[in-house]
């Protein structure tokens, strides 16, 4: 039925050489399907960001095979198969909001007459159309991050990689942004890989939560979130939601005990 967007088999990543070697990831098996919203959760040092960067071909695996959209991660990157959002919005502050969203379109040689309309459409999607002519420094942190999301989606990638995108935001903004990203996900049908260290965030957003543990980084559990795709503030008050939060928390604790390897 649904095709694989990411397929990892025995993927490992070791940084450094000789005595300074650090095993960041080992034995990662993971399958992500079209339309999935996958959260990678775990304590710091569990390699969740590294796994995201492996998928994006920002680092290369040391062992195992990793397939993105049926290709090597490198080819998928060259084919512009994914958009990425970091914890810091990483907007170019000499460009207006509109021009920031147009940046990937310029690099990917979209016809210049198409770019403004495309950027407007994306700003519409993240409800920032009124701020197209503003500059990044005139926006709040949450708004900057929405621009980053619009920019990541501007060229309609089939996969969206998000590396703790709301980590620097306050709780209120964070919850609003979660709603926002869910809406964008439903409207665009993009598959999402979302790195977070917040359990409620992972449960609220995901179709599946991938629990990771450190030393060395590995996947210790996967929890399917069988909440309906349409989620809102009420979802956060359902008992099913609480049960899942507890389930993820216990999986994390178990992973920590098991992962110590002492």
């Amino acid at each position, binding site marked *: 039925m649904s095709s694989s967007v990411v397929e990892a088999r025995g993927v490992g990543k070791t940084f450094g050489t000789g005595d300074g070697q650090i095993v960041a990831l080992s034995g990662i098996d993971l399958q992500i399907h079209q339309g999935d919203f996958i959260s990678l959760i775990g304590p710091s040092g569990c390699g969740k960001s590294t796994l995201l*960067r492996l998928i*994006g*071909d*920002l680092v290369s695996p040391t062992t195992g095979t990793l397939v993105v959209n049926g290709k090597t991660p490198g080819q998928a*990157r*060259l*084919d*512009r198969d*994914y*958009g*990425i959002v*970091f914890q*810091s919005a*990483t907007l*170019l502050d*000499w*460009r*207006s909001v*509109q*021009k920031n969203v147009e*940046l*990937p379109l*310029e*690099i*990917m040689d979209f016809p210049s007459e198409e770019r403004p309309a495309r950027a407007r459409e994306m700003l519409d999607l993240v409800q920032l159309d009124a701020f197209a*002519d503003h*500059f990044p420094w005139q926006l709040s942190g949450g708004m900057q991050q929405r621009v980053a999301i619009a920019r990541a989606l501007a060229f309609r990638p089939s996969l969206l990689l998000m590396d703790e995108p709301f980590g620097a935001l306050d709780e209120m903004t964070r919850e609003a942004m979660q709603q926002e990203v869910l809406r964008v996900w439903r409207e665009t049908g993009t598959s999402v890989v979302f790195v977070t260290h917040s359990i409620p965030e992972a449960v609220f957003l995901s179709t599946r939560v991938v629990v990771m543990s450190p030393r060395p980084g590995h996947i210790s559990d996967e929890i399917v979130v069988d909440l309906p795709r349409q989620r809102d503030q009420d979802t956060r008050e359902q008992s099913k939601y609480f049960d899942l939060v507890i389930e993820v928390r216990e999986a994390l604790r178990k992973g920590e005990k098991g992962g110590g390897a002492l």
Partner: protein
Amino acid sequence: MGGANRRIARTGLSILAVVVAFVLLWEGYKLIWTAMGWENPVSPDDRTMPHTWDIFLTLLRPAQRNGPPFILVELKAALMTLREAFVGFLIGGAVGFGLGVLFVRSTMAERAFMPYVVASQTVPIIAIAPMVVVWGGRIDLPQWLSVSLIAAYLTFFPVAINTLRGLRSPQPTAMELMRSYASTGNETLWKLQVPAAMPYIFTALKVSAAASVIGAIVGELPAGLRGGLGRDLLQFSQQFTAAPEKLFAAVLIAGLAGIAFVGLVTAVEHRWVQANRRLIT
């Protein structure tokens, strides 16, 4: 409009205040040191420290009997020196920028050439200048262009160092972002690294503008070039015991030339900042 006028007025006032303060210090020093009979660190007599008004009057008196006033002669000389400096500044700026780009692209090139770039600045300009003049003469380079090359020698270094630093200034995630777009090295350079480097480059250009004037003045000496500030400064320093106020007056003009050049670069920078905000809005 009113704001701009007020700003100019305020700038003018502060400049005037500094000039007045300097004159008071200078004359006050002379007065007190003469009264006390002190000789150190600098003797206050008129042969060592001419009165400020004498320096000022020298500017207005004819440079030679029945000739045009000193200030006009020296301003003309300053203009010639500035022209040499400007050409040198352009050459040095371009070379510096090119080196910065080369080094950011190739760590190997940086490792191979950076030591020489740094070493080049430890060689005194007065040793380099005659060589450039002689070599320039061999290949029939116009003398003023040899002088410009000497100015360029002082100019390229700050630009190269700051360009490199600026090109490396984007956050690692910004570079990763460009990589995620499968951006080519050229696109990353022009769309991310160069715009990010511009504040660094402008800072370097201001340093270089001042350095290029020094380079041109020094370069005029071995070139034996007449009509510029270098020759006049040398001449007035030889006549210092007879007419010290002439050297001070000429130094004043040389300083003004440097300030004018740095001011020009600053104005261009302001323009650039404003245009870039406006262009995209």
